[in-house]
């Protein structure tokens, strides 16, 4: 009898994993390149993100073609010449929040966290680690982070003609308002 209760408890606790999931379909990721010649900013407001509050698992996925640039031609060049978006339509991040246990999802507040994982873009997968914050407010979680990305790490060739216009390191800003995923 005892063991049946144990069994029930164990299976319950495993079921509970699915309940602590937060998600969004319209997270925002922007990147910014600044050089003395030109500032370039691109915004993507349809980023998919899922956070598993128990395990700390965190994943992002976005379509390269959903990036908006100030200049339409730049957007075309970004997709055609640099990211080759027809060949590599998505950018994904799959990682973990190391100190997820320090976050109390039942209590409002801002929690600094460390994130590490793999980012795949332009067919290249690289490890990325960065600091971020999780802000818990009224049952929702706002995830944000700023980190740097080097285009050359992802085999993105920049011709010498535009070398002066594109920074060698781009600042990437992530902002995602995550809501509880209802099963």
């Amino acid at each position, binding site marked *: 009898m005892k*063991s049946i209760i*144990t*069994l029930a408890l*164990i*299976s319950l606790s*495993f079921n509970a*994993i699915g309940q602590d*999931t937060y*998600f969004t*379909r*319209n997270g*925002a990721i922007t990147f910014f390149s600044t050089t003395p010649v030109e500032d370039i*900013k*691109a*915004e993507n*407001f*349809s980023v*998919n993100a*899922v*956070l*598993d509050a128990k*395990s700390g*698992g*965190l*994943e992002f*996925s976005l*379509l390269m*073609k959903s990036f*908006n*640039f*100030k*200049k*339409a*031609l730049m*957007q*075309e*060049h970004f*997709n*055609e*010449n640099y990211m*080759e978006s*027809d*060949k590599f*339509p998505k950018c*994904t991040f*799959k990682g973990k929040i190391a100190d997820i246990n320090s976050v109390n999802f039942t209590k409002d507040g801002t929690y600094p966290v460390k994130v590490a994982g793999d980012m795949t873009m332009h067919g290249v997968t690289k490890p990325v680690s960065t600091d971020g914050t999780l802000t818990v407010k009224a049952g929702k979680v706002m995830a944000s982070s700023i980190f740097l990305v080097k285009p050359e790490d992802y085999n993105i060739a920049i*011709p010498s*003609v*535009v070398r002066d*216009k594109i920074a060698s390191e781009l600042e990437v800003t992530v902002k995602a308002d995550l809501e509880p*995923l209802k099963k």
Partner: protein
Amino acid sequence: MKQSLALMLLVLMSFSAKAQDEEGSLLDLLGEDETINYASASFKTTRIVNSQSIENVAEGVLDFKISHRFGMLNAGAYNLFGLDQATIRLGLDYGITDNLMVGFGRSTLQKALDGFVKYRLLRQSSGGRNMPVTLTLHSSIAVNMLTWADPERENYFSSRLTYTYQALIGRKMSNSTSLMLMPTMVHRNLVLTSAESNDVWALGFGGRQKLTNRLAVTGEYYYVFPGQLANVYQNSLSIGIDIETGGHVFQLHFTNSTAMIDKGFITETTGQWGKGDIHFGFNVSRVFTLKDRNKPPKE
């Protein structure tokens, strides 16, 4: 004993189930979203060589076009194979929306003024919506501004006007290959002889083959259905390359047409490729962004 064994087995099973969960993607929980994937950049610019392509300039973009044709290659060494002569069209194109653009230009040939409206009706897409081709409607008007050949007779302004109507049907076959079909009608208010038709029907063919991300070969051919024009007029054939450098696109080409406006190259081409009546020419396109496209998400 039996019980505890079963318990252990179950625990193990649920552990393995958990492990499997972690292997899979959390994003799978969201399911697939049906995004519409539009074909983009079928051509580098809004023109193939002389003809319109299926591309439009984006909303708020002003495109300054300098089109230039030298004389004919068979002009000989004395004229540096045509480089001593030139005809030019200066033009401005503007995108009112992403699907609607207007343009205006002036040519040295016939001192012609021209204007056009181009509207993209259907856009090639896959994913959430499947559309095999892009269909763009294009209409232009040209005014011949030369002084009247015979000022004595009664001349009407309407006699200077020529209209062109086109359906531009195109498909980006692959990342590097795009093809176009262009049924066309040119209406001329005044023709030289009664043997020539006022309405001239033609069918255009166009294409683009990318060699690298920044270099492409282009070509266009307009077949005018027989019996509509005088014998001196030829079908227009143009072959060129597109070179892209940042904000500019350079188009270098060879063509047997002198005019750079629709009614000109479709109905008034006299050059013959076989005889060496070939113009070397170029188009330079420089775009200016007048409207910031960084826009916040729609709520």
